[in-house]
């Protein structure tokens, strides 16, 4: 009785070609070389802590450098200010004093300058009511055309 054959009995395997005798030795050498060349570059950036620290250090360095260096616009303003005479600056301030607010002015005036200005009295220095005599007050009312007999008690008090 003939033995039952399966499909594999009708297939003959062709062996795949074998590589050269030194192929595997060269393959090991090439693989290790490829691995080493990768190892030089990759590990630094594969470690997130090292990578993030490096980025943070660079950012801080850039911020510090820029924080203490005037921008281009600020540098132009400083150069232009140096070209102006003091009288030109005073004239500009007088003409545009309404554009300055007290916060802006205070940024440019030191505490010592304020102290000095308080100790020197000029024609424009404000005076207090205690420094005025009755004659000064009456003269002011006359100049302003105010009749003191028409003022109410509250207004006189002021």
């Amino acid at each position, binding site marked *: 009785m003939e033995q039952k054959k399966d499909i594999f009995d009708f297939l003959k*395997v062709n062996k*795949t070609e074998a590589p050269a005798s030194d192929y*595997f030795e060269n393959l090991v050498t090439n693989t290790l070389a490829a691995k080493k060349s990768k190892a030089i570059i990759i590990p630094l950036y594969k470690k997130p802590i090292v990578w993030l620290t490096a980025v943070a250090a660079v950012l801080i360095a850039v911020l510090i450098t820029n924080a203490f260096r005037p921008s281009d616009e600020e540098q132009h303003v400083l150069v232009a200010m140096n070209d102006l005479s003091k009288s030109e600056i005073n004239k500009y301030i007088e003409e545009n004093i309404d554009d300055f607010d007290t916060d802006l002015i205070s940024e440019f005036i030191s505490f010592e300058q304020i102290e000095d200005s308080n100790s020197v009295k000029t024609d424009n220095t404000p005076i207090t009511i205690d420094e005025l005599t009755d004659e000064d007050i009456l003269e002011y009312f006359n100049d302003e055309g105010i009749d003191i007999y028409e003022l109410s008690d509250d207004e006189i008090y002021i």
Partner: protein
Amino acid sequence: MNKYPEDQEILSLNAQGGTHVEEAFRLIVAKFGEGLYHQIRRITKNHEHTNDILQNVLIKVFENLSAFKGDSALYTWLYRIARNETLNFLDKEKRRSGVDLDPAIFEIIAGHATLDQMEPDKISQLLEAAVNNLPEKQALVFQLKYFEELPYKEIASRLHVTEGALKASFHIAKQKIEDYLVSHLNQSTI
């Protein structure tokens, strides 16, 4: 029988670190490289592609050998990496145009009603698909026994299983592949 050290000796060598790591790696390639080469080349049918894939496989082996816990035989682990790398390569290669330089892996022996009408390349493709459908261990046993024609004793030594278990595994694998081939060949000839 085997001129190379056992898996455990290679792994112990690798665990010692330093220059021993490279020595362990060389032993792995010397012991298993040819089997991996044929495994890949039977599918790519091209030495250049095989070379590229095998190098990628070996880089992964080198990078991950220390993490290998020895839950399976070393060759089973290597086979799995090579199989995945090859399938990934084929997936990418479909988008290009792969060139088969090798002849078909089969010759058809006259006498089978259906096979006589088929091209050997078509049979190769079907067999490859059938092997890929097998569980990993059966696919590995089939490859070593059918394509490599290794004796059961040597396969048992490589895979750390008994010869009886191997024979059963090979029988089941063959049966599944035959069922797959017959089913698809019948569809092709209808």
